[in-house]
């Protein structure tokens, strides 16, 4: 390149402006690139939206001031068992917040997987029934009742998350239903904005009576402050059967167990679709260079640098690809964003979320495809001599 950088930049802007002004003459070819990249997004982004939605639903449920006590070796709260005789020692551990009456904010809870009829697939779906005490409800202020009331202590009553009520049959307010061999009445619908929205919550005492089950699954505690967690953990783990985890760490453990299969499938589909879009981009940019042959020849003849012209070809391709990615992301957002899906490590319901991260991955994918696709015609334009450019015309 014989031109100084400032001049090269000015040349680049001038050539790019010329190219964009004549874009309407190449509208069909340009629309092919936009269409192809939009389709790549429709193939790639929904599974990414599912992954981001599930991760987001777990992280929103995590509160650093809360901790869980599980049995050693338990992979989830549902597979844990807390012996009855451990509860008193847990409640006496340092670092736990106290109510105004001096009670430890520690709640022994149940988690039982339950099958309910999925309204979409008309097959059994899986979700969780959590047995929670009054202290548990006090520790979870994000449970906001949309209708009805909380379950009364000792009664066979449940409240359903709003996503669970949408997804499964038989969860309308005041409905009577059978779960775990007992009859329960739905007395409320709640919303938390997290993975809990796909679950059902009952009174822990009622669940204990219904199941004749002496041992709880886990204990949830509220800490005085997140900094008190280490003191609490030391005290709890004196009992070698128990472990303590901050709630964010527990959900991080669940997130790490999310299968990579959907992401592998998404990226493979994205790659195959992207390769198709790549060939379309190569062809479109060759056609663009061919259509602008006279213009490029004149620009080269009057002293414009080949690199500036080549860069403008790449820029045009990346602009079209970016528009295609935006269009595709918009289609995916309208199609799947907020859609409830029965899934997750322990069942439940989460929402697909088209997050900024998903949109950025889409944009990045499109820009890389455009960059690779525009390189051959750009290099051809950049390396050609003025005589070659005039001859091509």
């Amino acid at each position, binding site marked *: 390149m014989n031109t100084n950088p400032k001049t090269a930049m000015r040349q680049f802007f001038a050539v790019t402006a010329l190219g964009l002004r004549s874009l309407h003459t190449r509208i*069909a*070819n340009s629309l*092919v690139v936009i*269409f*192809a990249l939009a*389709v790549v997004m*429709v*193939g790639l982004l929904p599974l990414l939206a599912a992954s981001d939605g599930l991760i987001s639903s777990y992280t929103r449920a995590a509160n650093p001031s809360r901790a869980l006590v599980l049995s050693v070796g338990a992979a989830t709260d549902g597979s844990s068992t807390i012996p009855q005789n451990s509860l008193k020692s847990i409640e006496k551990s340092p670092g736990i917040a106290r109510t105004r009456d001096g009670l430890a904010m520690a709640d022994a809870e149940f988690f039982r997987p339950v099958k309910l009829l999925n309204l979409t*697939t*008309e*097959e059994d779906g899986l979700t969780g029934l959590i047995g929670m005490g009054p202290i548990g409800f006090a520790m979870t202020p994000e449970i906001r009742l949309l209708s009805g009331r909380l379950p009364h202590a000792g009664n066979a009553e449940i409240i359903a998350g709003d996503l669970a009520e949408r997804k499964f049959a038989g969860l309308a307010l005041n409905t009577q239903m059978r779960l775990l061999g007992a009859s329960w009445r739905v007395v409320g619908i709640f919303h938390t904005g997290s993975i809990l929205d796909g679950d059902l919550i009952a009174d822990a005492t009622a669940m204990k009576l219904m199941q004749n089950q002496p041992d709880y699954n886990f204990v949830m505690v509220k800490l005085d402050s997140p900094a008190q967690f280490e003191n609490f953990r030391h005290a709890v783990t004196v009992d070698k059967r128990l472990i303590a985890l901050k709630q964010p760490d527990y959900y991080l453990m669940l997130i790490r167990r999310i*299968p*990579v*299969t959907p992401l*592998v*499938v998404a990226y*493979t*589909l994205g790659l*195959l*679709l992207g*390769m*198709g*879009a*790549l*060939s*379309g981009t*190569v*062809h*479109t940019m*060759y*056609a663009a260079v*061919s259509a602008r042959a006279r213009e490029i020849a004149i620009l080269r003849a009057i002293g414009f640098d080949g690199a500036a012209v080549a860069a403008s070809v790449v820029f045009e391709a990346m602009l079209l690809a970016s528009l295609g990615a935006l269009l595709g992301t918009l289609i995916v957002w309208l199609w799947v964003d907020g859609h409830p899906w029965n899934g997750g490590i322990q069942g439940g319901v989460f929402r697909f979320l088209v997050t900024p991260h998903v949109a950025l991955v889409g944009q990045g994918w499109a820009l890389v495809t455009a960059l690779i696709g525009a390189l051959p015609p750009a290099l051809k334009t950049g390396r050609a001599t003025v005589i070659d450019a005039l001859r091509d015309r």
Partner: protein
Amino acid sequence: MKFVPFIWAALRRKPVHAVLIFTSALFCFALIGVALGAGHSLAAIDHGGRQSAQLNAITETIAAIGLAIITVLTWNAVSHSVRLRMPELTILKALGYSTGLIITLIWSEAAAPSVVGAAMGLLLSRGILLLFLHLLPRGDMLPVPPWPLALFATGLPAAVLVAGIASAIPALRISRADVASELARLR
């Protein structure tokens, strides 16, 4: 007229369009093969339950997307090729070649790389599926999809049909071209 040598000469003269149709067909039919094969493996473990119907709907949608992309990309390549070669095609018309024969030649130049690309793409999809089953956690528990003979039997004619659909609009252009005006442009 020597059909095959004519097409071969045209492909050699301007291979870029044929290469692009070939690569588009390769990856789009690989996508179709992977989607349908993966759907078959997953549906087999559902034993025809409702999940199978959902899976079939998803894989068929992906296959339809693949066909839509290859049709659009082939149309783009054929359109550009016809636009560049209008003088040559007009001369053929002036020499007495029927419009139908010229359209058949255009379609053949699109169909040849499309069919070859589709065949290789379907073979590639088999390789990708086997790699999937090997790499995915517990992938060895999924049944290996059978050799996609039925897929070849429908995929290759589909590639020919795609070339036909993609060539339709450029073919209309040829049929409506006025020989005198096109020849006048050559001066």
